[in-house]
């Protein structure tokens, strides 16, 4: 059984990760579908705002929750278990990919550039796949 003191940081971590997933999914669909709809500029703006106003705060909440949980004994382990390492790799590399997607989505919105928007969309899809792997690792806890 998990100690009760883990519940609040776990709620922050889980909620942050799930909200981040939704924001990145919204950005991916908006950027990749923009060329096929009546108002592509609106969709590119929606993608950028999803990442900036929803995704970025959600990432911070997810990460604060993760560090809070880590401080409750995991930091005393000699070696991090594999599932924790997978989580950290996805969070660290994922942040770089997220920021790149955010910048590209912003550029695509301001320059009205379909190619740059698609690049942001592809990065968002990669991020979604990485998040799926991370959530699987958190649940299945591979050794």
């Amino acid at each position, binding site marked *: *059984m998990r100690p*009760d003191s883990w*519940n609040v940081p*776990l*709620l922050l971590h*889980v*909620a942050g*990760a*799930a*909200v981040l*997933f*939704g*924001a990145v*999914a*919204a950005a991916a*669909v*908006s950027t990749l*579908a923009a060329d*096929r*709809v*009546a*108002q*592509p500029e*609106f*969709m590119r703006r*929606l993608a950028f*705002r*999803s990442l900036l106003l*929803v995704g970025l705060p959600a990432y911070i909440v997810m990460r604060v929750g993760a560090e809070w949980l880590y401080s409750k004994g995991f930091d005393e382990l000699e070696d991090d278990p594999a599932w924790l390492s997978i989580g950290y790799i996805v969070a660290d590399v994922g942040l770089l990919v997220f920021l790149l997607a955010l910048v590209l989505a912003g550029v695509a919105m301001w320059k009205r550039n379909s190619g740059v928007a698609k690049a942001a969309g592809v990065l968002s899809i990669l991020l979604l796949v990485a*998040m*799926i792997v991370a*959530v*699987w*690792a*958190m*649940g*299945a*806890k*591979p*050794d």
Partner: protein
Amino acid sequence: MSLNDWILALHLLSAVALIGAEVLFTIMVVSLWRSSDAPRIASTMPLARAGTVLVMIGITGTIVFGVWLAISLDRYQLWDGWIIAALVLWAIGGYTGQKAGEGYAAGGQRAAELTAQGTTSSPELAETFGASRAFWFHIATLLVVLLIVIDMIWKPGA
């Protein structure tokens, strides 16, 4: 890794899909707030379709893998209070989510029809995408999903 580890992982992935879908729908609701712009509303339909797929994965996966896990793990029983609470909330959330989806889907369909007819604006759409019945059902769904997450983490009575 045991079978239970896999079931838990799939249960968690389903929950993330479900919450992610609600976030995606909320982004749509906020971005289209009181919009009467038919082409704009019709443009967001790919998002609605993606959200619907995520909801289907989430709502099916959470119940199937959740019940399977409750049966499979010795320390939990299906009749534990927090599991019954989760099942009741899941049913309520399914109902409110469906009602919200029906309302917004009708609005999206109307926007597509108006766009095809060359009409760019309609007060009827502004009503649907404002504080409508569908909106309040969506808010209710968000609250229910939040309660389910809290119930799953705190497991009161476990």
